[in-house]
């Protein structure tokens, strides 16, 4: 009995931490409609600041709690800076831009934290006065956990009062429920958005600060928490603070008991709960339809078939690529394989996102499934290289068929969140199921067959597969199937009215995109000789998004250019010490200055010099 109570109390303490992180995210989303990846960074900075302040003040109970509050306030100011300099400019941009921009902030904050606090994990002091454990029904319960169980509802109550008893709070709620209301605010809108962002960031900072007696402060805190925080927000209903509370309790308490039966479930459980909730209640427990995100987009220009001149230029590029091993070293061939893998991955993501209008935050899942399927096919089924290579896309298509069926039932950010959940579930399973997937140690020794084992030989194999894959995807984009996807994206009502099966079409689009991502994963795994769980991770998914964005989402050539530029920049920049700052900076510049990406820029250039027909717009 006492044991179960202890388990419940631990669950509730975790729920409080989780709620503190998630509620700020939810408030920010509710008003600004921004999916803010940088929320995890604010959480991490809050923890670091609290650590520094507490150790510096060293002032007993009062000093400890004061430090936490000051840390939260500083993070609030940091949020204000980010809002004013970056986010304010992209409130009306499509979700993809906002997401990638906030990811740029994540990178910059990571390096700033590295420069200030160093790479070592920092073990915080215990909370003065709450450092021991009390016995409840014979079980030891940390006093600090009990304090957290009280703090969570206290903060919930404070936010409730703020939202129901102040003019400002009432405005915030109105803005969350009704978009037109926000625009009607006119001048005050800026002020409202900034204030909401400060509040949300400060809450994230407080959440991080409160963690220091419980866990070491580290540079991995940001991304490790953001996935779960999103899950809480989505389950609760985006914009709903009480929803976030209920969701945090639901997940944490479920988790506290589920690990008794199945200890490995922790990583996967929140995402499974989220998937189930979204299928039953597509807008979350307390969300309503209409609290959907997504800025208005300019209508895209019609597609054009490739001109003769364009085809010749492209053929010349492919020939140069094919001839490159003759004149360059093995090192270049290896780099070019990376470039081609990234290109195919980005083109497959663009196929579902740009053409199909289904934004995926978890496309890495299918890349990873392709890679793992090939590796496991070799290791367990004893397949030789080519059959193993064929297995990859088939397995990826299977996974996409399964998860896509759920995802296409939703749209907009909710669809994006479900793709993220799917990817995290697969990542969690891969990570935990060590006996089969090798867990953290990955699967090693996946080398190409003898005839393809030289760097140059493998280059040609990779080229056939990647260029072939890209060709097929492009051909499909121009086929009735691809046009159908664009049609559904433009107007699902019109698509249904001309007799299309909208969901089936999207589902097939999702599957095709997954299959080709799997093909990219296959080429990847044989070029590296090994595969680790991070191929399915958030970073890999975001890399794909950045490539598509860098290239420009409105052009078929966009993801190809974007991936090329991305890998070359990455190859150059990662040799530097503080590459994340540079990379984050580049991302922000692209989002803020050249929102139509490299392809958009090249397109404008070609029109200007008259190579491409059509009005220069």
């Amino acid at each position, binding site marked *: 009995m006492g044991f179960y109570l202890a388990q419940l109390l631990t669950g509730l303490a975790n729920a409080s931490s989780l709620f503190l992180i998630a509620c700020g995210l939810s408030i920010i989303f509710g008003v600004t409609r921004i999916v803010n990846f940088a929320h995890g960074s604010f959480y991490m900075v809050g923890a670091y600041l609290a650590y520094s302040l507490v150790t510096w003040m060293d002032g007993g109970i009062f000093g400890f709690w004061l430090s936490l509050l000051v840390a939260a306030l500083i993070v609030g100011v940091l949020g204000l800076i980010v809002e004013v300099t970056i986010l304010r400019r992209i409130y009306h941009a499509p979700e993809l831009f906002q997401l990638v921009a906030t990811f740029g902030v994540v990178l910059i904050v990571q390096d700033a934290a590295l420069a200030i606090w160093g790479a070592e994990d920092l073990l915080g002091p215990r909370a003065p006065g709450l450092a021991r454990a009390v016995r409840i029904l014979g079980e030891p319960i940390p006093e600090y956990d009990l304090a957290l169980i009280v703090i969570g509802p206290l903060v919930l109550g404070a936010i409730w009062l703020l939202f129901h008893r102040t003019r400002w709070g009432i405005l915030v709620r109105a803005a969350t429920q009704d978009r037109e209301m926000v625009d009607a605010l006119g001048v005050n809108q800026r002020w409202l958005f900034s204030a909401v962002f400060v509040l949300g960031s400060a809450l994230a900072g407080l959440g991080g600060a409160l963690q220091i007696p419980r866990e070491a402060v580290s540079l991995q805190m940001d991304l490790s928490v953001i996935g779960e925080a999103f899950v809480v927000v989505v389950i609760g209903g985006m914009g709903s603070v009480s929803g976030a509370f209920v969701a945090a309790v639901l997940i944490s308490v479920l988790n506290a008991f589920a690990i008794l039966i199945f200890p490995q479930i922790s990583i996967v459980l929140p995402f499974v709960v989220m998937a189930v909730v979204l299928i039953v209640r597509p807008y979350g427990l307390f969300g309503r339809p209409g609290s959907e995100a997504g800025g208005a987009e300019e209508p895209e220009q019609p597609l054009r078939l490739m001109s003769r001149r364009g085809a010749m230029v492209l053929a010349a590029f492919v020939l140069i690529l094919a001839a490159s091993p003759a004149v360059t070293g093995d090192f270049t061939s290896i780099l070019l394989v990376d470039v081609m893998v990234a290109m195919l991955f980005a083109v497959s993501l663009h196929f579902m996102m740009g053409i199909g209008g289904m934004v995926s935050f978890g496309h890495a899942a299918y890349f990873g499934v392709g890679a793992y399927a090939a590796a496991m096919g070799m290791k367990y089924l004893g397949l030789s290289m080519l059959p193993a290579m064929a297995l990859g896309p088939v397995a990826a298509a299977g996974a996409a068929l399964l998860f896509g069926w759920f995802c296409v039932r939703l749209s907009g950010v909710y669809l994006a969140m479900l793709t993220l959940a799917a990817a995290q579930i697969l990542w969690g399973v891969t990570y935990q199921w060590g006996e089969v997937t090798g867990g953290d140690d990955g699967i090693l020794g996946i080398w190409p067959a003898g005839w393809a084992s030289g760097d140059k030989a493998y280059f040609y194999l990779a080229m056939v597969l990647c260029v072939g894959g890209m060709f097929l995807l492009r051909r499909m984009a121009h086929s009735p199937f691809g046009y159908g996807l664009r049609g559904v994206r433009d107007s699902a009502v019109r698509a*249904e*009215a001309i*007799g299309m099966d909208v969901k089936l079409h999207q589902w097939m689009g999702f599957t095709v995109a997954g299959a080709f991502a799997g093909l990219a994963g296959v080429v990847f795994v044989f070029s590296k000789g090994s595969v680790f769980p991070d191929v399915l991770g958030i970073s890999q998914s975001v890399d794909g998004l950045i490539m598509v964005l860098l290239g420009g989402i409105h052009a078929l050539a966009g993801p190809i250019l974007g991936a090329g530029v991305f890998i070359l920049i990455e190859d150059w920049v990662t040799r530097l010490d503080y590459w994340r700052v540079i990379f984050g900076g580049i991302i922000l510049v692209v989002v803020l200055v050249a929102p139509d990406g490299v392809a958009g820029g090249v397109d404008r250039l070609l029109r200007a010099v008259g190579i491409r027909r059509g009005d220069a717009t």
Partner: protein
Amino acid sequence: MSVLEVRDLSKSFGGVEAVADVSFDLGAGEFLALIGPNGAGKTTCFNMLNGYLRPDRGSVKLEGRELVGRRPRAIVRMGVGRTFQITRTFLSMTVRENVQMALISHHKRMFDFWSRAVRMYEGEADALLDLVSMRDQAARPCSELAYGDLKRLELAIALAHEPALLLMDEPTAGMAPSERVALMALTGEIVKSRGVSVLFTEHDMDVVFAHAHRILVLNRGRLIAEGSGAEIRENPLVQEVYLGGGTVFAAEGV
């Protein structure tokens, strides 16, 4: 023989009877208007014919085949075309491509992964665009069209499925008076030349009396009158519903 047989069609929303026991027939080649004040149940009626709403009761038969219970896309394929009150088109495509898409879907080629969509059914698409006098704008992006042109494009798209019946919910809403007359005249010609039947709702009584062969009047979900323009004008029940008597028909209903 009638193309469409509607019998006892009913739908309530939480106690409010939006449509109650509506029955009517629509003959081949007929141009039938469904009128009534705001909230009378016209759109609800249309949505049940289209498959977007499931009726509580009643049946809808197209050339003898039951429509109730089928999905909207299946009903389209059976020969019921529609145009929208607020136009819906594929904005990232050209005018011609919009019609081509309808043709591709009509010929069940949507899951062709290889052919080039812009090369498919070009001739048929241009013929349909000719019909609605939009051929000269075929290559323009749909996003640049004027509102009246979008309405005509929707008509061409609907005709791509060779419908036996065309449902038009407020086809002229939001158009200038001269455009309204032109669009309805065009629709009338097409109906005649292709043998399509049309059911439309409309608030502009000038349009209704000028073009409809027959008129149904709906009020609070119930059919209260049916007949020719002259009969409807004289009907005391109808005059009562449209407060203020006969003169209302001169002004525009809102």
